[in-house]
């Protein structure tokens, strides 16, 4: 095959935080900012789960365990680049510039008021794998415009079984589109383990099969993910085409607040992966490097908790979604049918 698969799993930090590869050349403030986002993601997710438990938002899919992969894959992106993912990519979306409040609003069932546009993201996808084709289309647009911009398209291990994922790889290969595919292989698609999802040893093998390099990376190692995505982004930017990256990670929580992983998952596995939790790993590294100390870490947690508290307050202070607005979201202009149906609804609500 023209593109050999990198057989080793790329790693920079061992689970205990020790450096086992060449660290990327990132300044201290960036390393700290990465860590901050990882903590933010964890606390945000926990807060959202708590809100759901109290019936204050709808079904939510926790992010816990995948913070390194999410932060690492978003880090190499510039403002003009695009990032496209599913409900599990809230954290990478925030890193890319999507407002945490706007994301929270969608979980209150509001119209997602264009939350994603400024940051160059698409609304997080629900129909698995379909977004990866959109990502390729955006990349084809950049290529057409002769822009040096790139797209990162993300999906889960389960989503790779969908036809759309494979069509996306194939289109990207054929058109040499400036895109990096990242598969967040968290071991499970709800209750279906990775080994029942495909018989291949690695999903990354799909890369060479569609004419692009495939890499496997330790997804709980934010520096390793950053490096491999950064390299692939650079290649794409240079016009050298797409890359497929498989990030090995783990969903520490339930699939969503509607899911009970005890039905299908062994405690052993959870224990193993808890030991590989990306947060303590990176924290230890930063502490070893004297870029963080326990007090600073505590302050960071407190600051984020306060931020989230005010986010929730803002969220809940908002006026309810106006049903009438929805009539303007179907077409650029309301059809006569929608005009009539809107008038009927307003009349019924006594709001003529």
């Amino acid at each position: 095959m023209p593109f050999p698969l990198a057989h080793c799993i790329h790693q920079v930090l061992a689970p205990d935080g020790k450096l086992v590869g060449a660290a990327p050349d990132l300044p201290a403030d960036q390393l700290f900012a990465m860590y901050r986002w990882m903590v933010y993601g964890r606390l945000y997710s926990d807060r959202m789960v708590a809100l759901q438990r109290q019936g204050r938002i709808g079904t939510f899919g926790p992010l816990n365990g995948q913070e390194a992969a999410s932060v690492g894959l978003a880090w190499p992106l510039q403002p003009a680049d695009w990032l496209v993912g599913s409900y599990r990519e809230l954290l990478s979306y925030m890193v890319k510039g999507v407002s945490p409040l706007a994301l929270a609003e969608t979980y209150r069932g509001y119209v997602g008021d264009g939350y994603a546009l400024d940051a160059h993201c698409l609304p997080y996808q629900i129909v698995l794998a379909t977004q990866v084709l959109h990502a390729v289309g955006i990349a084809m647009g950049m290529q057409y415009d002769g822009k040096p911009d790139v797209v990162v398209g993300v999906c889960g291990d389960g989503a790779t079984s969908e036809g759309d994922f494979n069509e996306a790889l194939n289109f990207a290969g054929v058109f040499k589109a400036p895109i990096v595919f990242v598969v967040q292989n968290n071991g499970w698609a709800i209750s279906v383990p990775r080994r029942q999802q495909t018989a291949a040893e690695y999903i990354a093998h799909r890369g060479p099969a569609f004419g692009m390099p495939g890499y496997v990376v330790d997804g709980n190692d934010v520096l390793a993910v950053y490096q491999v995505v950064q390299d692939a982004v650079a290649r794409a930017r240079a016009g050298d085409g797409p890359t497929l990256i498989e990030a090995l990670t783990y969903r520490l929580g339930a699939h969503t607040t509607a899911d009970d992983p005890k039905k299908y998952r062994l405690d052993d596995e959870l224990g193993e992966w808890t030991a590989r939790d990306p947060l303590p790993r990176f924290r230890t590294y930063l502490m070893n490097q004297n870029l963080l100390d326990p007090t600073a870490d505590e302050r960071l947690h407190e600051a984020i908790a306060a931020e989230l508290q005010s986010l929730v307050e803002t969220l809940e202070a908002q006026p309810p979604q106006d049903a009438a607005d929805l009539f303007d979201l179907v077409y650029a202009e309301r059809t006569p049918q929608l005009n009539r149906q809107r008038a009927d609804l307003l009349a019924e609500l006594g709001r003529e």
Partner: protein
Amino acid sequence: MPRMTLVEAVNHALAQELERDRRVRVFGEDVGKNGGVFRVTDGLQARFGEDRVFDTPLAESGIIGTAVGMAVYGLRPVAEIQFAGFTFVAFNQIVSQAARLRYRSGGLLSVPLVIRAPFGGGVRTPELHSDSVEALFMHAQGIKVVIPSSPYDAKGLLHAAVEDPDPVLFLEHMKLYRSFRQEVPSERYTLPLGQAAVAREGDAVSVFAYGAMLHVALQAAEQVAQEDGASVEVVDLRTISPLDEECIAQSVSKTGRAVVVHEAARAGGVGAEVIAVINERCLYSLLKPVERVTNPDMPFPLPSVEDTFLPNPARVAAAIRRTLEP
């Protein structure tokens, strides 16, 4: 007789089919160990083994495409699509393949496949999970579309669907999964596909509904009956394709007035076909325009405003009253 929820009735029916007929296999995403995201297939894998009840890779076209192959081969696949909106990913396999193989093979092959999928509003799911898709499959030919409104019907109709030599799309309304219990016989029984049922007799106006909307219609009927003393007939369509035209025509011939209720968008919905049937079979009995109480012509509403958009008893009652105006 045991009292069952709709989830339990479907689970019970699946278990009985698995027990009765070795050819029956139940599969889909998360139907195995997890027992389905709504627990509809709970316990089935443990009881019948991984050969009979199993998880597939996450690919709806793959699920239906392989199910078509299994059905042709002689099995009786019962495939689950996790939410009805995801049938769109498998639309070609359902509409051009499963539904057409009898036609394409000159009648020699058949596809005795049941596709189960939850749908329906009122439970505040994320976007694209609650959509009503029945009208699309009504227009497709060669597949039947069944929507039970109660545990009793669910069991009888599901047994009939598994027995049916043609593909059946069996849509289960999420709101009804656990909303009430009903006495459901433990024994296997079938209810005929293609037949509507009069859920409430009346002679002043006919209300046609199915799934969760049947109960909305019944509430509205009760309200109008109590407040206006009008005798409202409510018909549970039960099978959307083929429609029970005879029952529709009989009811409207008697009442001369009609309301159709569904959660799907209005344009090209089941309501339109019901009106067309009335037009063809009993227009001269019709005294007032048939009323459609439906979602506006827009995607299924966002969770926060679901209640504003979903047909509710007040809205259906108002429509009934409009038809009753002189």
